[in-house]
């Protein structure tokens, strides 16, 4: 479903993605972890071309993402993206936030878009907040709205860029619950996160990155309990000790 072929990217002199080869199949849940600056966010941001790559190829559903003839609107409609800092539109209500893309990108009738939007809000448990503004919600609620916003386009793939890193510890659970639910529906997901509990519970594969390279991949149990490389072992011991 998603395929990276020898992908390379530089920020100036920094080689942020170094010969990435990766295949993600339909329905797979991939967790990506690694120290900050290792290129994990950049990796998933390349999948919907929020970032450009300089070498190699990324193919999503048989579409070459970085080809200049690719219809980006169509591509991005298949991919939901959830940001660390939520990035809701503060001047719109929750419902308007969720409806904006279906009405303007998919050109759905308002009534139809509203129906879908309310369905997705129900899925994240926030139907009663549909007329609130983002500033009136807690961080966890805002992130759940952001997930609903990603879901209204009925994507086949959901990308999560550290979805719980900006949240109070108390609110992490409610966001992870929504994500676990998505997994049970068979959504293809790439999640950049250090939430080990989430990874062990639902991930099919864990990918460990350092300095722009994929250092190690494995099942969550293998990776966290018996890391093959010293770098991964060191990383895991660090996230475990606090």
């Amino acid at each position: 479903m998603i395929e990276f072929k020898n992908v390379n990217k530089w920020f100036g002199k920094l080689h942020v993605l170094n010969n990435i080869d990766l295949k993600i199949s339909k329905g797979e849940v991939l967790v990506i972890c690694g120290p900050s600056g290792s290129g994990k966010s950049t990796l998933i941001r390349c999948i919907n071309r929020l970032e450009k790559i300089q070498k190699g190829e990324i193919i999503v559903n048989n579409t070459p993402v970085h080809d200049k003839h690719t219809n980006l609107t169509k591509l991005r409609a298949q991919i939901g993206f959830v940001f660390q800092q939520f990035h809701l539109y503060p001047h719109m209500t929750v419902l308007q936030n969720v409806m904006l893309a279906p009405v303007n990108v998919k050109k759905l009738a308002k009534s139809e878009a509203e129906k879908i939007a309310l369905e997705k809000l129900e899925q994240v448990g926030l139907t009663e907040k549909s007329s609130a503004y983002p500033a009136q919600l807690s961080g966890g609620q805002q992130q759940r709205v952001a997930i609903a916003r990603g879901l209204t386009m009925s994507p086949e793939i959901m990308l999560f860029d550290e979805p719980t890193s900006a949240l109070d510890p108390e609110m992490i659970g409610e966001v992870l619950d929504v994500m676990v639910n998505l997994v049970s529906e068979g959504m293809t997901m790439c999640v950049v996160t250090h939430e080990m509990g989430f990874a062990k519970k639902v991930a099919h594969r864990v990918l460990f990155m350092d300095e722009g390279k994929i250092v190690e991949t494995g099942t969550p149990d293998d990776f966290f309990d018996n890391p093959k490389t010293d770098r991964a072992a060191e990383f895991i011991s660090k996230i475990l000790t606090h």
Partner: protein
Amino acid sequence: MLVDFNFRIIFEYLPLFLTGLRSTCFIAVVSIALALATGIIACACRISGVKAIKYPAIAYIEIIRSTPLLVQIYFLYFGLPTLGLRVPELQTGILALMLNSGAYIAEIIRAGITSVDDGQLEAGTASGLNYFQRMRFIILPQALGVTIPPLLGQNIVLVKDSALLSLISVMELTRCGQTMTSERFMPAEAFFTVAFFYMCIYFCLKALADWSQRKLIFREAY
């Protein structure tokens, strides 16, 4: 002192002042409209990634902002004819106000646009909105709210700056005061009246800005 203040002469000259007021209002409305258009275009060029239009826009904005308006007016009024372009005073004046205010308005709008968080734009991009949709639904509704107060300020400055056009003999409000002063030598009465009319324009503009801010800020997305 107040006993010496001659109200009768003000009423005698009222028709002249009303002509001046009309002229100033006309100059203001036309210049503000043209300056807004100039500002929007200059700003669009300024934030564009295309160097061929970005750098001319920067040059325009910096040249205008680094030189006095009076110098710009004199340059157009005395300079253009020597370059072979003969433009009447009124048009020269409006052109000067338009170019001057346009540069400031471009920067005000740019500040409003850059005040909107980049992350929201990325969120819009990620959900498939194109450039114009991101402008229309995400940036402008938020940018307009923060730009209206400084835009109002700039337009008030423009109205008051139009007094400088009296120096190139455009018959507007200030010029009327000068005329009355030179005919009857009553500068206190003349410029008191002139000031009063400028205040009237100021309060009208302020009311308009308050109204538009209520209408435009956080406008619904669709």
